[in-house]
């Protein structure tokens, strides 16, 4: 009986290991992202109780600094073959992304400082793909599927309900 139980336990352990091995890496990284960004929404609300949006942005950048150093080192090590005009334009768009993202952060913090609940502000701002989809439709000549049109419609309903 005990032997059978032990056998069952070891089989279960082996199954768990196999299941762990079968978990794709992309799924693991995606779940880690959810945890990191989910926690970010919470700590931003706590931080907004003790400072204004500008100081929050400064300290946010300080928190980002170690990652910046690591990525700079990685880019330096694996220097790619991007060249000339392509690289300059790529850097320009990346820099613009940072500026727009940073000003977006300021508004996000300001929404928290102005009394927005983390549990409401996070879902509202998470609707940003709606703008990306619309801009991609206009400027990148991308087409929308039925599912995305449905998403767009739901986004407007959500904003209305959340602002009630």
């Amino acid at each position, binding site marked *: 009986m005990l032997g059978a139980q032990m056998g069952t336990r070891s089989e279960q352990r082996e199954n768990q290991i196999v299941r762990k091995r079968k978990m794709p890496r992309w799924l693991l990284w995606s779940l880690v992202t*959810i945890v990191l960004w989910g926690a970010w929404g919470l700590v931003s609300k706590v931080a907004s109780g003790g400072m204004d949006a500008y100081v929050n942005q400064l*300290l946010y950048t300080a928190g980002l600094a170690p990652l910046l150093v690591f990525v700079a080192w990685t880019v330096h090590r694996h220097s790619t073959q991007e060249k000339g005009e392509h690289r300059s334009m790529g850097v320009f768009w990346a820099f613009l992304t*940072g500026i727009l993202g940073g000003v977006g952060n300021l508004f996000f913090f300001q929404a928290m400082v102005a009394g927005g609940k983390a549990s*409401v502000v996070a879902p509202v701002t998470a609707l940003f793909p709606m*703008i990306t989809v619309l801009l991609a439709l206009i400027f990148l000549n991308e087409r929308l599927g039925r599912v995305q049109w449905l*998403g767009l419609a739901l986004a407007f309903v959500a904003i209305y309900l*959340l602002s009630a």
Partner: protein
Amino acid sequence: MHLWLGFAVAALVLWGVTGVTQKLSTNRISSERSFLWFCWAMVALSVAVLVVARPHWGLGTLAVACSMAGGALNGLGAWTSFRALESGGKASIVISLISLYPLLTVVLAVLLLGERLTWTQTAGAVIAIAAAILLSIEAPQNAEM
């Protein structure tokens, strides 16, 4: 309209534009280099904030720790999302999956900060998350409209 909602919508619009500029950038350079210049832009913006905005420094330890943790968590999250895409995850699945992150914020805010939502806001939060997922699903080529 509530003031906080105006700020939240402004953030939504700016982050939405970054979806396009990010695409324009990674079409030309690697995701690592794009992320690096994204970080440098954050540094430049912070310098501008320091010079122009004259921020008020009246800081509690918890707020400082949370704010710095916010930068680290958000930056690491961006990096892990790139890793998910590089590890073979389809963009339509990875982006839809990580769009679930506000669900965790809502749960943590209710449990740890004691926030309470009305039924309307709860419905709105659920629909917002569903909408974000649907918007992130790539249209199949033969189903384009």
